[in-house]
């Protein structure tokens, strides 16, 4: 019983939130890593692409809600997601035409593209705020919980409750489907293979007749889809506020680098590593340990390694450690 209580408390405050957060980071990091692998620069505008895609989804969600369309227990935002992806895709393709293509034609160094992407980031930043404003937006509807803490307690008779939000469930399921589709696309389709070829060796790919502009366009389309899905899931699960997406940039990059830039598998692993470290290091373990220990050994302190204020510092530290000791990341990506 004590053990079960400990496990439920741990799931409620650590496992469930970290898995949902990890999935969101993984989807974000996949986008970053694809850009890095194929277009060969770190795209700082990725967080704000997420915000823009999520914003398009929200606007369509409101429209659908206004028409009285709903998905029953599921959030209407899922229905609006394809439209959000279209919006984000249009935005990144226009940006690529207007900005990145110019620099690509000149074969500039990656660091210049990084700075360019920063400029793009500020423009997206302003665009999102201009359209939807800087405030929190609520757009979630449908059933709030798969299982709520109160129901769980009365069902099992345990002291601890376990809450799983619908948004958390949807996040994990959507992430699994998206990742499966992406891997199928990269490994099985002609376009996917040409993208990987272009990523591995640009010159050889060009010699074998792969059209670089096509590869670039597909990359942006996939990145727009990933960013919108990640952004919408994060907004559903937490809340939509343009500024938080800017802050997400750090853990997303940390995830991509920890996993190995350019390696899709690494991005997913990195997302979960970062999410679990952030949550476990700032979690106060007192409650869990109290259940497991005999009464005499119960801890007085909170058993918290770092205050919650330092959450973002955790991803920084992991980033530094990985760059120092294994610059190519866990899955042998490209070194930074």
């Amino acid at each position, binding site marked *: 019983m004590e053990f079960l209580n400990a496990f439920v408390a741990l799931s409620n*405050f650590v496992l469930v939130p970290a898995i949902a957060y990890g999935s969101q980071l993984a989807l974000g990091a996949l986008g970053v890593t694809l850009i890095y692998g194929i277009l060969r620069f770190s795209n700082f505008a990725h967080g704000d692409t997420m915000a823009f895609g999520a914003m398009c989804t929200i606007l369509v969600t409101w429209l659908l809600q206004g028409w009285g369309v709903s998905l029953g227990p599921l959030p209407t935002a899922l229905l609006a997601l394809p439209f959000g992806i279209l919006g984000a895709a249009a935005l990144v393709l226009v940006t690529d035409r207007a900005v990145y293509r110019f620099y690509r034609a000149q074969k500039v160094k990656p660091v210049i593209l990084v700075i360019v992407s920063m400029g793009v980031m500020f423009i997206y930043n302003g665009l999102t705020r201009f359209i939807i404003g800087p405030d929190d937006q609520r757009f979630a509807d449908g059933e709030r919980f798969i299982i709520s803490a109160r129901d769980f307690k009365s069902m099992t008779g345990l002291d601890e409750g376990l809450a799983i939000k619908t948004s958390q469930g949807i996040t994990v399921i959507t992430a699994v489907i998206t990742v499966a589709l992406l891997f199928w696309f990269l490994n099985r389709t002609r376009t996917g293979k040409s993208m990987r070829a272009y990523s591995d060796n640009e010159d050889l790919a060009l010699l074998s007749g792969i059209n670089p502009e096509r590869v670039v366009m597909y990359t942006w389309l996939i990145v727009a889809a990933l960013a919108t899905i990640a952004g919408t899931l994060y907004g559903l699960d937490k809340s939509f506020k343009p500024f*938080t997406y800017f802050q997400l940039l750090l853990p997303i990059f940390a995830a991509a680098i920890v996993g190995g830039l350019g390696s899709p598998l690494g991005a997913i692993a990195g997302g979960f590593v970062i999410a679990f470290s952030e*949550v476990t290091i700032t979690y106060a373990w007192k*409650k869990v340990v109290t259940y497991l220990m005999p009464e005499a050994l119960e801890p007085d302190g*909170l058993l918290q390694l770092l205050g*919650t204020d330092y959450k973002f510092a955790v991803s920084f530290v992991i980033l530094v450690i990985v760059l120092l000791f294994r610059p190519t990341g866990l899955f042998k990506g490209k070194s930074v």
Partner: protein
Amino acid sequence: MKKFLSATAMYAVLASAAFAGSHSETVKIGVMMAFTGPLESLAPPIAAGAELALNEVNEAGGILDGKMLEAVRGDGTCTDAAAATAAAERLITSDGIAGLVGAMCSGTTGAVLTNVAVPNGILQISPSATSPGLSDQEDNGLFFRLAPSDARQGEVMAEIIRERGFSEVAVTYTNNDYGAGLAGSFQAAFEAAGGTITLSASHEDGKADYSAEVGSLASAGGEALVVVGYVDQGGSGIIQNALDTGAFDTFVLPDGMVGTILEENFGSDIDGSFGQNPSAENERGDDYIAMAEAAGFDGTSVYAKEGYDSMALMLLAMSAAGSTNGAEAASKVMELANAPGEKIYAGELGKALEIIANGGDIDYVGASAVELIEPGEASGGYMEVEMKDGKLMQIGFR
């Protein structure tokens, strides 16, 4: 370009005409509230209260031999001292205000007082700034507030919690002057009364996710969670997350958290949660609520009564002093607000002006039962509130 030039030229002419006008016929009063920021949902009723008092005085014939009054709004934000200072500066230099009602939050109020009100020598009355630090701030006697210091609120909150039989609570506070000040005074009072604080942790406003904060608070445990925060900001985020994870279901809500938006966001999910906001018992308090309803706003909203009283007191002080000069008007505030004299309730400003014009003495009670103590702050009556069936109910005064 030509059009632009002529438009700006026209505007300059109009603006200077308006500026010249402001010095002859009307007296302008600044109303600076946090119209944007973490308390934006509380600001409109306070500003509306202030303007209600101003209109009432206008209807009674104005002040200083029939000069009409005009309110000019400024955005004090709540957290951005630089923006508030700039807005106050603008109110003085371009609008030519003679007095300032505001700002709303403690940090911005202090900044405006030091940087604008004192150097320009104008009277400033805040309806709602509660930080204990403002009591000691250098103000040349120009600053008053109708909200009590949080040192007092901490004691009252500790008392209420103890009386309800809670002995162990966790505290989370918003990481600024208001949050840290109130959390500190509460902790001292609660521990002195024999209670235990399991954890007092800060939270940052404006985050999307408070699961880490709630996780550590839940781990520390406690029978209730004291949320010293803002209802439009992290405070609501913390409550939402604590409810979602089942970490706490009773919350203690100090003044920044008491707002009808709680009913909208949480409804009966937080039944049994309780709190307090500054407001003294007033035998004729309903007068004001009816007046506010007629004017189209909610007079029971936090500090809406104080908004009316701040403006009323400022205008009465100016007419008692016979001048809009800050120091002269400020010297009258205390004697008007306190006994002896004829009691003046909300809606009786015309009568008060008459008494003052005839050389009589008044005791301004107003909407919020104003009683000022040195150094120019409310003595500290609190209204106890509780969530019942998804509604925020008043249950008593202390």
